[in-house]
């Protein structure tokens, strides 16, 4: 019926999933290396295809445009790096690698559809395909009490979030009579902003808020992040968040452009509350994963400001911010994983004196945290600059002031980590340098390069993001 060619990247990824599954079934334990290689090759092929296939729509539900391509590239890059994070997952955690990779890739596949979906049913299935594997991966080491507990909490809250989103969809559907996002616009103009429509929109916002980890829908984040295996925490924080934002952009920009004043007002409030709560709650944390979880909540608070300033500038800043955030956060998690491998701990005390044991890791962590805090000339600063400038030019000056104050506040806990690394004395038994396997080294090099390059020379990505968004917003 339509042009299947457009779906080629997704088909390749799905094919990779099946292949990994089959290879996992027939291979012996010493051939595990092939699983990782296969996944990497699959992801790389997907990325390449992504930029080969033409833009266009598949039916009414799927649209491969520039925005989708940009987001998919981010997600696939995250997927690639997280696969490298998990290179010897089975050895370190004693859990099967094949199923792990299948779940990880399925989750990635789900996000690809979130980035392209223009119809409620496909978006819903894509959302659940993103979430379920992540829930299962969070609980992937159920003998660890934290993992099982985090998984159950994640599942229940994700199910609730999805149910609320779904309920919102059903109310909107009852009012508009279509599941097609583009078709919603004329239908909703006809009905007007009835309480039913507004309530439906609100339920959708709550569901999106859950996925983006906005306060008060964020409560799952710290617990799931802490419980999950660290590589999965990294994926959750980067790809999971990207999925939430792209879903929000798709639904709201395509389906509810008329109600923009309603939802941007709500997002303004949520952004303010989210960044404050995330930053304050991060201050007393001593567990690195938890600290980064709250930090990611605060970051979500900043990013959602781009939705408040729902214009070319705002949206393109979101895309740039997500890219910068990917590098900084994955670099930080890379160091967390490296330290966890050697000391079996994610507590802050394991980082004491890291600068003396492993100066390179220490420097990467320093760069990553400073980038997250938005210190120039790193990627995080350029991202904050564009984002804040966009919100500022839309007239939300109070929000920008609050965000700047929050950035200053966030330095408090980032510096706490930096202090532990550079100033505090290591524990007596922790004198050996941290060994970093090759796969992890690759990730660290790539992400560090990204942090520096995006900060010093941001224009290519910025221009690309702007171009993509302009095309997306022009009907």
């Amino acid at each position, binding site marked *: 019926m339509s042009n299947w060619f457009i779906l080629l990247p997704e088909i390749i990824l799905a094919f990779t999933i099946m292949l990994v599954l089959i290879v996992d079934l027939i291979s012996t334990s010493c051939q595990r290396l092939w699983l990782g290689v296969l996944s990497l090759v699959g992801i790389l092929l997907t990325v390449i295809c992504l930029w080969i296939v033409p833009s266009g729509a598949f039916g009414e539900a799927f649209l491969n445009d520039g925005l989708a391509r940009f987001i998919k590239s981010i997600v696939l890059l995250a997927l690639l790096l997280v696969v490298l994070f998990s290179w010897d997952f089975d050895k370190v955690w004693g859990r099967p690698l094949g199923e792990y990779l299948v779940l990880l890739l399925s989750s990635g596949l789900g996000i690809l559809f979130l980035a392209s979906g223009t119809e409620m049913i496909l978006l819903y299935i894509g959302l659940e395909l993103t979430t379920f594997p992540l829930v299962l991966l969070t609980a992937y080491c159920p003998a660890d009490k934290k993992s099982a507990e985090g998984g159950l909490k994640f599942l229940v*809250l994700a199910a609730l979030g999805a149910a609320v989103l779904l309920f919102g969809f059903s109310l909107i559907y009852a009012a508009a009579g279509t599941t097609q996002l583009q078709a919603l616009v004329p239908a909703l103009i006809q009905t007007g902003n009835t309480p039913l429509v*507004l309530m439906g929109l*609100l339920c959708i916002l*709550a569901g999106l808020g859950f996925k983006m980890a906005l306060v008060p829908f964020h409560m799952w984040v710290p*617990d799931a992040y802490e419980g999950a295996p660290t590589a999965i925490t990294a994926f959750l924080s980067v790809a999971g968040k990207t999925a939430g934002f792209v879903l929000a952009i798709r639904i709201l920009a395509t389906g509810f452009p008329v109600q923009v004043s309603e939802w941007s007002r709500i997002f303004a409030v949520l952004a303010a509350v989210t960044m404050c709560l995330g930053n304050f709650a991060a201050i007393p944390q001593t567990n690195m994963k938890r600290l980064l979880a709250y930090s990611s909540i605060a970051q979500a608070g900043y990013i959602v400001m781009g939705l408040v300033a729902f214009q070319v500038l705002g949206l393109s800043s979101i895309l740039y911010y997500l890219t910068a955030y990917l590098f900084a956060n994955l670099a930080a998690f890379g160091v967390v994983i490296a330290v966890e491998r050697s000391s079996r701990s994610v507590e802050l005390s394991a980082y004491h004196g890291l*600068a003396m044991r492993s100066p*390179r890791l220490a420097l990467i962590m320093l760069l990553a945290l400073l980038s997250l805090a938005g210190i120039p000339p790193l990627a995080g600063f350029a991202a904050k*600059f564009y984002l804040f400038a966009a919100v500022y030019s839309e007239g939300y000056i109070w929000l920008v002031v609050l965000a700047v104050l929050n950035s200053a506040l966030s330095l*408090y806990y980032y510096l706490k980590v930096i202090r532990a690394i550079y100033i505090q004395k290591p524990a007596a038994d922790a004198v050996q340098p941290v060994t970093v396997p090759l796969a992890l080294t690759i990730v660290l090099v790539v992400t560090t390069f990204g942090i520096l390059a995006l900060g010093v020379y941001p224009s290519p990505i910025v221009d690309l993001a702007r171009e993509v968004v302009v095309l997306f917003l022009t009907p």
Partner: protein
Amino acid sequence: MINHAWIIPVLPLAAAVIVALAGKRGDRLAGSISAGAIFFSLIISLKFFAAFLVNPAAKEVSWVWLKSAGNLTLEVGMLIDPLTVIMLVVVTFVSLMVQIYSMGYMAEDEGKARYFAFISLFTFSMLGLVLANNLVMVYMFWELVGLSSYLLIGFWYHKPEAANAGKKAFVVTRFGDLGFLIGILVLGYFLNTFNIIEVGTAAQTGKLTGGLGTCVALLIFAGAVGKSAQFPLHIWLPDAMEGPTPVSALIHAATMVAAGVFLVARVFPVFTASDTAMLVVAYVGGFTAIFAATIACVQDDIKRILAYSTVSQLGYMMMALGCGGYFAGVFHLMTHAAFKALLFLAAGSVIHAVHTNNIWEMGGLIKRMGITGTTMLIAAVALAGVFPFSGFFSKDAILFAALDAGRMDLLVLGIFTALLTSFYIFRLFFVVFTGKPNSTQPGHESPAVMTMPLMTLAILSLGLGFFAARFEHFIVASLGANREILHQHNRLVPMFAFLAVLFGFGWAYLVYFQKAISATLLTRKFSLLYKLLKHKYFIDEIYLFFVRYVMLVVSAGLAWFDRQVVDGAVNGVAWLCRRMGAGIRRLQVGRLQAYIFAFVLGLIVLAVSLLVTHPDVMAIIP
């Protein structure tokens, strides 16, 4: 040539990265690498200095870095004018001296490599700050300077006071920095530029007038107050003395604390455009100068005395700038950098030898530490402002500036501060170097690698003053040629100043050298009086009474206020942030259903607040 100026800051940065990445393996070479890098920076800076002596016109070069829609653009660039080259030379020179000295001072320290990496990073940030051509870049390097000084102050992490001091320096300066940031943003908002030259032109052509100009100037001044440790944000500086002493010499005497003064000088037109702002700068500076000097009179810790002295001298510079004395402020910054760095390094040499900071546990050291003692005496004399030492010229310039501005009150205050300065610095000198040796500690002269920088700095402390007139024309050139140098050639001012210095010296001499008045035996007060009368020190006695019973009480009171009230307020804010964090953390109770409850409650609250305020909904409710 200007296109190559970026090499000056990049060399120390490269050194920092190399030393940091080498880790423990680089311990041996760390000092040489960073000192070598800064040496080349110094050479290049001197080349610039020479070039600008010939042609002092400002030069600028810049590139676009971030460009958002509209006119929001961030540039990366360098602005080089006489002020810049002077600062370049001061920073690279003092940094080189300190690094050479540190090779001896830190020889035994475990974290040597880390130390040199930090100090190179600091030098890089300071040079970047000096070179920046726009206020956003200034602010970035400003923060980087703060960060690296935080790392250096807290360098001896095992001392809890050091860790706390680092934190405090960071938190306190943050208050000022916040003002600075807001000032920059306001400035950018109204002038549509962050470029220093354009801002200066705008201020001179009257685009920054009235409340706005004052407001911007004061906000920027807030940053300077924090960094330059002016009242009431001065409290971090004495605590910062917990760091290694060479660090104190570099950061807390010569360079970083001068950044505030530099900043005010950098955007001087913004200040001169507002009389109110100038008044505030002058009086904050003047008050800080005398306030800190009084406290310095009663301290026992050698580094604390020097710290309060630094605060006081920075106040002096601010006062000069506030009175319109651009040259006076910058020149004093320069001379102060030389003699205060020397004082700190000499103090470090003493501490290195006797392993204590308490001046009462020292004594008679001049015999065993000849070079240290002599160089410290030179620095003390320079600080006190005795002709022909450098301090004399720069201090006179400040007093003249006050006179030119017609602020007699500040002039008197300045002279009185000079008296106090002379008193406390000679008190320090006499107690440490003369009298009976307190021989619990061996005390020996430091190795050559440490005394060489001392002697080099001593020569500068002695000689810099003779170039005052040359510098004056040079420095003022950076303000534009149309500015006349006013001078009322008043002989009275230097005379009074000299008398004040003599008075201060005399009292210090009597109390701490001659021990004519025993400082410890209060019970012999009356026999003391008798002795005094017999020795015809009657005139002195009035002043002494003043010093002992009024001054010291006032000083002690102020010191108490300082530590308890001002300090407490700052600690309170940090405490509040932590409490907020802990409180919010408690919301995350761990129980699943509480999370669900928050979720649904959030939904209901949002729904109700949206629905009841929505006009379309209001319209259909009967």
